C-alpha cells in the first residue's frame, strides 16, 4: 500500500465519525450525512497532495464537507426542521430526564436556520475559531460573530421555555 493510501486510510479512521456528526447537524438527515461524508473523502483523496501538514487535516476536511453541503443544497431554501417534528437520534440513556433534555437540545439546534446553525456547529463540534469559520464560509469575521451570538441567544430562549418534548421512547 502506497503512502497516499496509508494517509487516506488514517484520515478516514481518524475523522469519519466526527465528520458524520458534523454532516448530520448540517443536513438534518442521516442518509444525506453519510453521502456527504463519502463525497468529502472522495474529494479529499483527489486533493490529498495539497494537505501538507496532518495537523491541519481537521480544518481541511471540515472545509471540504462544508463546501460539499453548500453544493448539495440550494442555499435559498435553508434546511430547517420544525421544533416539534424531530425523532431523536441520540443513544438511549437510563434517565428519562436526561433523554428529554437531549431531545430538546437537538430540536432547538435543528430549528436554527442554516446560516446560524452552520457556524455554530463549526465552532462547537469542529472547534473552529471565529477566524477559521470566517475563512471557511468566506464571510466577514464580524458577521460570523453576530451569527454565533444570535444562534446561542436563540437556543437559550428555546431551551428556557417549558418542555415541549414528546415522550422519549416510542412504543
Amino acid at each position, binding site marked *: 500500500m502506497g503512502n497516499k493510501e496509508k494517509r487516506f486510510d488514517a484520515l*478516514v479512521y481518524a475523522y469519519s465519525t466526527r465528520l458524520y456528526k458534523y454532516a448530520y*447537524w448540517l443536513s438534518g438527515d442521516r442518509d444525506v450525512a*453519510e453521502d456527504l461524508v463519502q463525497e468529502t473523502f*472522495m474529494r479529499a483523496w483527489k486533493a490529498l497532495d495539497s494537505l501538507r501538514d496532518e495537523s491541519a487535516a481537521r480544518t481541511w476536511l471540515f472545509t471540504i464537507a462544508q463546501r460539499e453541503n453548500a453544493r448539495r443544497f440550494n442555499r435559498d431554501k435553508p434546511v430547517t426542521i420544525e421544533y416539534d417534528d424531530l425523532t431523536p437520534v441520540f*443513544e438511549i440513556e437510563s434517565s428519562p430526564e436526561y433523554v428529554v433534555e437531549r431531545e430538546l*437540545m437537538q430540536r432547538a439546534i435543528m430549528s436554527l436556520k442554516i446560516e446560524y446553525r452552520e457556524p455554530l456547529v463549526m465552532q462547537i*463540534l469542529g472547534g473552529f475559531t471565529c477566524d477559521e469559520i470566517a475563512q471557511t464560509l468566506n464571510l466577514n469575521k464580524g458577521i460570523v460573530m453576530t451569527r*454565533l451570538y444570535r444562534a*446561542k441567544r436563540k437556543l437559550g430562549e428555546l431551551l428556557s421555555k417549558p418542555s415541549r418534548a414528546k415522550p422519549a421512547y416510542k412504543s
Partner: protein
Amino acid sequence: MMDDLEFRRRCIIDPFDQDKDFLLYKQRDPEHTRFAQQQENFHQSLQRSMKRVDVPEGLAARIQLRHSLRQRKVRRRIWLRSAGLAASILAAIGLALMMAPPSIDLQEVVLEHVYNELAHLNNNDDVPMNDLGAILSSVGYGLRKDPGQVRYASICPIRTQDGVHLIVPGEIGPVTVLLMPGERIAQRSVLSDERFTGVLTPTPGGSMAILGEQGETIRSIENKILASLLWAT
C-alpha cells in the same frame, strides 16, 4: 475599551476566548467570572448534545470500500487507455469482459451491497417459511425444503435485477446469502476482504454469493442452500 455589554456579548460568542483584554475583564469581577462560567457550561452542554449522535456502523469500512472500488475502476480505465483502445468501444464489444473475469465486478458489487446493509447482520428474527417462499417466488425461485433458520429475507436490487438477500446463522456469526438471478458467472470463486470470507458460485440461471466473518465455514451453508432451493419455478 470593553464594557459590560461587550464583555457579555463576547462571552456568549466564545466563552473560551483567549484574548488578553477579555480574560482581564473576566477576572476583574466575580459577576463577570460567574457569567463566563455559565456560558462555558452552556457551550459544553451544546457540545455534548452535538457529539451524542449515533454514527452508522461500518461507516469507515464503507468509505474505504467505495474508495477502493473507485480506484479499481480508475486503474482499469488507465490500463484500457494505455492499450490504445477507447474504453467505450471495449465495453460495447465486450473486450473488457475478456480482459478481466466478469466475476471480479460482481464480487465488488456483492461486497459493496453487504457493507451498505451491515445493520441486517444484527437481525434476530425467524423468517417463516411461507414468507421466505413468497420472497423467493418473486424472483422465480422456490423452496424445495426447509433451509433452516433464516434471520432476514428481502428483495434487493443487485445491479440491473432484483435478487434476494438472506441472513442465516453461521458457526461464528451471521452469514449473508445473496441470490442473484441473471448474474451468470463461469466458475466458482472465493470472495474475501479484511472482515469477510465467502464464495461466489454459479447457480442455474444466475449466481449466489455467501459471505461470513473471517473463519466461517461457508461450504456447509452453500450446500444447504443449493439443496433447499428450487432454482426455476
